[in-house]
C-alpha cells in the first residue's frame, strides 16, 4: 500500500496562498471571515474548519543588502501548514462515530456523511487542526484530497503550488527529497533550515513534513506533540479505582447503616 505524504518547503514558498485557495476551490470550503489581522500578510491566522491549508508569514528584521534567501536569519518566511495526518492521530482515536478513518494512502479522512458533530476530535488534535464549523455542525479538516488520490491525482494544493514548495509523493521519497534540499541549502550557506518531522514522539510520525528556517516554534509547530491516547491508561486506571471505590463506599456505607439499624 502506498503511503503518501507532503513535504512543504518554506524556503521556496512565495506566500502566494494559491494552496489555500485551490484547496477551498476543490473542496468547496466556504470563506473563513473577512478580518484584517495586521499580522504581516496573514489574515486567515490558522488552520480550522474552513481553512485546510494555511500560509504563515513569519517576519523578522529586514536588512538592506540581504534578500530573504541570504544566509543568516531569514527576513520573511512563508510556510504553508496543513493537517499532519498523524501516524497516531488524536482525532482518529477520539472519533466515536467512526467518521474519521485511515485511508489506504495513510491519510486521516473525516467522512462528512457520518460525522455527527460531537466535537471530541477538536480537543484531541495536538496540532490544533480539526474544528467544528459552527453553521454546519460537522467537523472539517484537510481530506488529503482522498477523492483525488483515489484516482491517482495529486492533491489540489500540491498541484497548484507555483514553486514546488508543496511536494506530494511517497513518504520515503520525500524524506530523501528533504535531505537533498537541506544539503542544497547548506551548500549555499543557508544552514539554519531544519526538517520538522514529528516522528519521535507519541504521534509516531506524520504525513506532512516541513522544511523551515530557524526555530519551528516560530511557525507554531510544537516541539513535542503528544497524541492524547498516551494519557488513556492513566485516565482509565484512575477511573477504575474511583469507580471501584464508589461502589465499595456505597456498599460499606449502607452495610454500616444496616448494622446501626
Amino acid at each position: 500500500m502506498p503511503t503518501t505524504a507532503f513535504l512543504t518547503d518554506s524556503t521556496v514558498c512565495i506566500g502566494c496562498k494559491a494552496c489555500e485557495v485551490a484547496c477551498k476551490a476543490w473542496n468547496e470550503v466556504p470563506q473563513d471571515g473577512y478580518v484584517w489581522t495586521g499580522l504581516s500578510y496573514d489574515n486567515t491566522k490558522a488552520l480550522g474548519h474552513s481553512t485546510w491549508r494555511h500560509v504563515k508569514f513569519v517576519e523578522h528584521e529586514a536588512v538592506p543588502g540581504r534578500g530573504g534567501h541570504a544566509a543568516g536569519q531569514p527576513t520573511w518566511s512563508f510556510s504553508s501548514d496543513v493537517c499532519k495526518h498523524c501516524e497516531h492521530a488524536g482525532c482518529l482515536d477520539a472519533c466515536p462515530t467512526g467518521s474519521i478513518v485511515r485511508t489506504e494512502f495513510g491519510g486521516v479522512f473525516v467522512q462528512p456523511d457520518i460525522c455527527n458533530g460531537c466535537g471530541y476530535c477538536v480537543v484531541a488534535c495536538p496540532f490544533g487542526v480539526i474544528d467544528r464549523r459552527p453553521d454546519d455542525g460537522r467537523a472539517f479538516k484537510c481530506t488529503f484530497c482522498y477523492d483525488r488520490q483515489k484516482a491517482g491525482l495529486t492533491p489540489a494544493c500540491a498541484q497548484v503550488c507555483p514553486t514546488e514548495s508543496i511536494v506530494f509523493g511517497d513518504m520515503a521519497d520525500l524524506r530523501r527529497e528533504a535531505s537533498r534540499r537541506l544539503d542544497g541549502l547548506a551548500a549555499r550557506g543557508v544552514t539554519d533550515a531544519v526538517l520538522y518531522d514529528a516522528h519521535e514522539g507519541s504521534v509516531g510520525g506524520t504525513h506532512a513534513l516541513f522544511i523551515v528556517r530557524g526555530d519551528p516554534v516560530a511557525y507554531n509547530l510544537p516541539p513535542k506533540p503528544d497524541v492524547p491516547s498516551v494519557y488513556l491508561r492513566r485516565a482509565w486506571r484512575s477511573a477504575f479505582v474511583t469507580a471501584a471505590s464508589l461502589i465499595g463506599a456505597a456498599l460499606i456505607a449502607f452495610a454500616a447503616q444496616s448494622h446501626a439499624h
Partner: protein
Amino acid sequence: MPTDTDRREITLTSIRDEARELAAPPAQGPPVPPSETGYYGLPLLKRPVWSASVPLYFFVGGAAGAAAIIGAAARARGRNRLAHDARWMAAGGALISAALLTEDLGRPSRFLNMLRVFKPQSAMSVGSWALSAFGASATGAALTSSAALDVAAAATGAVMTTYTGVLIGATAIPAWSEAVDLLPAHFGASALGSATALLELLGHRDAALHHLATVAAAAETVAGASVEMKRSAAVRPLKEGPSGLLVRVGGLLSGPMPLALRLLGRRRRMARRAAGLSAIIGSLVTRFGWVRAGSASADDPAVPLKLPRA
C-alpha cells in the same frame, strides 16, 4: 482672496486635525519576534466547541451514575424506598443525559452514529456505549425493579461517574491532560456528592447518604488541594482568570464547604441541606469551570510550544 489651492489646503488641514482627534486605539501590540511567542502568540490548539449542555451532562450523567450505585447498594440492604427513588433518578438522569448530549451535537439527527462502532481508544465511544447500556439498564431497573438490572445499572453507572474525567483528561488540552490522573476521581467524587445531596434533598434522611456525602466532600477537598498544589504552567487556567475562579469556587463549594458543614454543622438538618446544596452547586460549577479552563488552556500556545515564558 483664498485661491482654490488655499481652500483645498485648509480642508486638508482640517482633515488632518480631525484625523488626529479620531486616532483609534491600537488594534494590538507590535508583532514580537516569533520564536519567543510562537506564531504571533496565536493559539496552537483549538478550543473545545461544546455548549453548556456538555458540562451540564457531565453533572447530570455523573449524578445519575452515582444514583444507580446508591440505588443498588440501598436495595442490597433493603432500603427499598431509597432504592426506588435512586433508580428513578438514575433512569431520569440517563434520559436527560442523552438529551443533553444530543442537543450538543452539530448534527443531532445523527446521534445514533455514536453506535456505529465501538472504540476503546475513544473515551467518547466508550462513554456512548456506557450511556446506552446505563440508560437501558437504569430504565429497565426503574420499570421492572429487576435486581440484575440494578447491578447492571450500578456497574455502568460507575463508568458514568468517572469516564467524563477520562474524556477530557485524555486530550491535547494541557490543563486537562496535566490533571489526567485526578480528573476521573475528581468527577467521580463530585458525582457522588451531588447524587447523595439530591437524594437527601428529596427527603431521604438515611445516614448512609450523609456518610457517603461526607466521604465525597472529603475526596473533593483532597482533589481541590491537589489542583492547588500543581505548579506547572499547564494548570494556570485552573487557577487564574475566569476559569480559575470557577474551578476554585466550584472546588470550595463541593469540597471544604460541605465537608465543614457536615462535620461541624450544629443544626444537623439545616447544615446537611446547606451542605447538599453547596455540593450540587459546587459540582455544577466545577464542570463548567473545567470546560472553561480547557478553552483558556487551548488559547495559550506557551505550554504546547514549550515557550520560554511558559
